[in-house]
């Protein structure tokens, strides 16, 4: 056996499944990854790791991994596939997609991704080169993932902001400029269980070790909530009311930062008036949190010299997620916690480098003016929801699946599905999605393993690479990292390579200036003054130097605006809490609260039948969404899909610990193993999403037992509101428990 070489790289899906960012050392022997360890020289994780990274060898070299392009040879769903060459596979895609474009127009092929990790670049590259404006997280009802939060921030603050855990400073916690937040509101997130949205979850624990106190907004008891100074055990989906109630307390008791508000905030009086509609007793009744706790938490946050908020996807999943995000952002604004050490730090990609272009000019240059026109005219949901038209290039997921059924205003004929297991994963109303997608003329799935989506739908499967097998770069938010290919598994190719080659076939003229993906990376990385190879030679990561890319107080220093004047990057130069963009888009310019679509208050009859609020979508450190169930070291630690049931509720339903039960509502039922637990309140149950059994039969009708376990099949469709963002009912669906009858 040859010697072992160690190469530093950065984790960014595939493999760990996560949003990545940590430095990892690849131990490579004879062309094979034999071990992976955290990289102690990387500022992100400082040597630490997680279960999914440490089990990567079992994932990469799993006997069931797809390592060659496969073409379906039996009926759809038969599970009969045969290997073909890459050339044949790409020819097939080119021909089928070209055919649909000729007959119906490019918009009739949709480009589907799962949660946004490293796929935004390659998938838009292909979609736009082909000519389709329809890039969509199909099935993710209300597109309830981060975009609502991003939209609220961009339109009020002109920027994005994140909890400051020193991540923008090379020396991290040792940097004298940084101060630990006195308080961190951990809002709808379980930081020890993963790394969301360009954030390393355990940073919150690092801050706790350095003195930060926690205000936990979580319906469940977790490690973190049970160590919080204040645990606001909220009723799922009522976060908007809580945020407005806290804003009201802070204003009423004059705890806000008057200097900051006077100098830097527009619309304060409007917010004050709106928040006054949410007195604490009313908020307490809505949220089921004692009024005293709400008051105490609001005071603690406002009185802190510096405090931060780390928020999660439950914010987006509230009805009107955008309005909820807007409400929460008012908290950090009126307390002057913006871009100060230990506050809400303005987050910019390192060196201003982004993986793919956003502006209309850049898009027109690369893909032609036609594409930009189609983006405006043909993008699904853009005419219905102005926020889709004006903020980010998504198609609206709920409208897309309806349109697939109706063919109105134009038919959808094909789907390119990459990094997404729609049927076994994100799709609320999973069966509706299954039925609609079954009728498509062409489905390509790009993935690493078979799953219910490859089995049920794929005509062709292209095998994707893990991060040790690919060239890529990452600049979300910081540092900028190079990811260099060190091993090859089978014939797998990176998403970038696959899409680059196919995109060139559709758009040879626009893309002719790059021969390889590295050429493209070099161009994107130009603002940093480094090429991909130069960054790699420097150890694979770099942070923005002093200047606009580095905190703090950039609004005072004139580092945020194009004109170089002090202020924020908004028309008024202030943080515009009265949101004029929302107003223009036909939305409420001020934050407000909406009751969940299903609840005791909004659907009392349903509530009588189905009195338990089902919380799904919590993060597991072992599995990322619907992935990893086939990895032995991970599955061992959580072999069965469980449901957390409070002991009182278990008694009421006569359920014992470990019993298999049904969770049911009018949409159907799923199976779970009862786990009697104090983590949930008596009127809530909690279960992990994404379950199917990779060890079971994959061919139809079985589909890896997905219909026994896919919780999203009993989650209803959208509560989209006017923004079209938010309102996926993943945390607020009403169900009841039922014993499984022996003879059934």
């Amino acid at each position: 056996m040859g010697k072992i070489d160690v190469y530093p790289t950065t984790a960014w899906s595939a493999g760990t499944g996560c949003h990545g960012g940590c430095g990892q050392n690849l131990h490579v022997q004879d062309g094979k990854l034999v071990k992976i360890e955290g990289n102690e020289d990387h500022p992100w994780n400082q040597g630490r790791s997680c279960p999914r990274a440490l089990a990567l060898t079992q994932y990469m070299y799993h006997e069931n991994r797809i390592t060659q392009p496969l073409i379906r040879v039996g009926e759809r769903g038969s599970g009969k596939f045969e290997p073909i060459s890459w050339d044949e596979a790409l020819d097939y895609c080119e021909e089928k997609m070209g055919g649909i474009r000729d007959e119906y127009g490019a918009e009739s092929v949709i480009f589907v991704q799962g949660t946004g990790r490293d796929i935004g670049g390659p998938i838009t590259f292909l979609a736009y080169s082909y000519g389709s404006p329809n890039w969509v997280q199909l099935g993710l009802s209300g597109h309830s993932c981060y975009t609502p939060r991003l939209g609220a921030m961009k339109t009020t603050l002109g920027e994005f902001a994140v909890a400051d855990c020193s991540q923008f400073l090379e020396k991290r916690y040792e940097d004298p400029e940084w101060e630990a937040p006195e308080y961190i509101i951990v809002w709808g997130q379980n930081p020890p269980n993963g790394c969301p949205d360009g954030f390393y979850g355990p940073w919150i624990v690092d801050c706790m070790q350095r003195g930060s106190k926690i205000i936990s907004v979580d319906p469940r008891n977790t490690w973190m909530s049970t160590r919080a100074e204040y645990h606001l055990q909220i009723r799922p989906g009522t976060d908007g009311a809580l945020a407005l109630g806290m804003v009201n307390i802070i204003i009423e008791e004059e705890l806000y930062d008057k200097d900051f508000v006077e100098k830097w905030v527009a619309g304060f009086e409007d917010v004050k008036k709106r928040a006054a509609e949410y007195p604490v007793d009313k908020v307490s009744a809505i949220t089921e949190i004692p009024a005293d706790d709400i008051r105490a938490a609001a005071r603690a946050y406002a009185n802190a010299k510096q405090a931060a908020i780390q928020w999660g996807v439950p914010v987006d999943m509230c009805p009107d997620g955008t309005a909820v995000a807007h409400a929460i952002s008012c908290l950090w604004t009126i307390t002057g916690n913006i871009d100060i050490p230990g506050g809400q730090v303005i987050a910019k990609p390192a060196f201003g480098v982004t993986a793919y272009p956003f502006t209309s000019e850049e898009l027109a240059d690369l893909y032609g003016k036609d594409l930009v026109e189609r983006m405006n005219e043909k993008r699904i949901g853009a005419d219905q929801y102005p926020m889709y038209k004006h903020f980010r290039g998504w198609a609206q997921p709920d409208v897309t699946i309806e349109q697939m059924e109706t063919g109105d205003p134009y038919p959808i004929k094909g789907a390119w599905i990459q990094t997404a297991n729609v049927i076994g994963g994100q799709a609320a109303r999973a069966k509706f999605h299954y039925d609609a997608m079954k009728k498509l003329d062409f489905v390509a799935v790009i993935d690493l393993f078979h799953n219910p989506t490859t089995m049920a739908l794929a005509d062709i499967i292209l095998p994707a690479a893990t991060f040790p097998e690919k060239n890529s770069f990452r600049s979300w938010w910081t540092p900028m990292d190079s990811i260099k290919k060190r091993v090859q598994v089978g014939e797998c190719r990176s998403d970038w390579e696959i899409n680059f080659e196919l995109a060139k076939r559709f758009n040879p003229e626009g893309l002719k200036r790059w021969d390889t993906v590295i050429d493209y990376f070099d161009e994107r990385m130009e603002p940093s003054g480094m090429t991909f190879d130069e960054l790699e030679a420097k150890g694979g990561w770099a942070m923005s130097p002093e200047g606009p890319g580095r905190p703090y107080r950039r609004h005072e220093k004139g580092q945020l605006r194009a004109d170089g004047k002090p202020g924020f990057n908004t028309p008024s130069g202030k943080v515009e809490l009265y949101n004029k963009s929302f107003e223009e888009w036909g939305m409420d310019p001020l934050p407000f609260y909406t009751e969940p679509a299903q609840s005791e208050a909004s659907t009392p009859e349903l509530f009588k039948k189905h009195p338990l609020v089902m919380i799904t979508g919590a993060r597991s450190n072992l599995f990322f969404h619907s992935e990893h169930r086939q990895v032995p070291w991970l599955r061992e630690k959580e072999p069965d899909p469980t449901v957390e049931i409070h002991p009182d509720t278990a008694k009421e339903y006569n359920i014992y610990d470990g019993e298999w039960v049904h969770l049911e509502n009018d949409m159907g039922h799923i199976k779970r193993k009862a786990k009697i637990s104090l983590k949930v309140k008596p009127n809530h149950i909690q279960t992990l999403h994404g379950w199917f059994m990779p060890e079971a039969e994959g061919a139809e009708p079985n589909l890896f037992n997905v219909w026994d376990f896919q919780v999203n099949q009993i989650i209803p469709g959208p509560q989209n509101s006017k923004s079209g963002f938010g309102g996926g009912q993943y945390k607020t669906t009403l169900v009841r428990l039922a014993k499984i009858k022996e003879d059934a």
Partner: protein
Amino acid sequence: MAKYGILIDYDFCTGCHTCEVACQQEHNYPVGLNGIKVTEYEYQLANGKVKIDYMPFLTDLCDLCMSRQAEGERPSCVKHCQTACMKFGLTTDLTAEAATRPRAALHTHVPK
């Protein structure tokens, strides 16, 4: 005599399973075998508040990563712990350190 041990600031153990997989990878232990195992305990205090605690313990399969020590590396579980709540060292040093921690457990261990 137990010369070496691992000090665990267990109040900061979040039950994340990282140490367990770190150990399995390091030793290529199959499913069912591990040098470290994390336990969870949920309980309700008299005031109604719920508490959730985690505690990792070392098993007979732990060899304190002796081969890593020879290369100047920390044990795999210690290095990769997500909350850096584990520390490897001489039991004499760690005993003194444990006395300064409000909630810590010192696992001494003489590998077999």
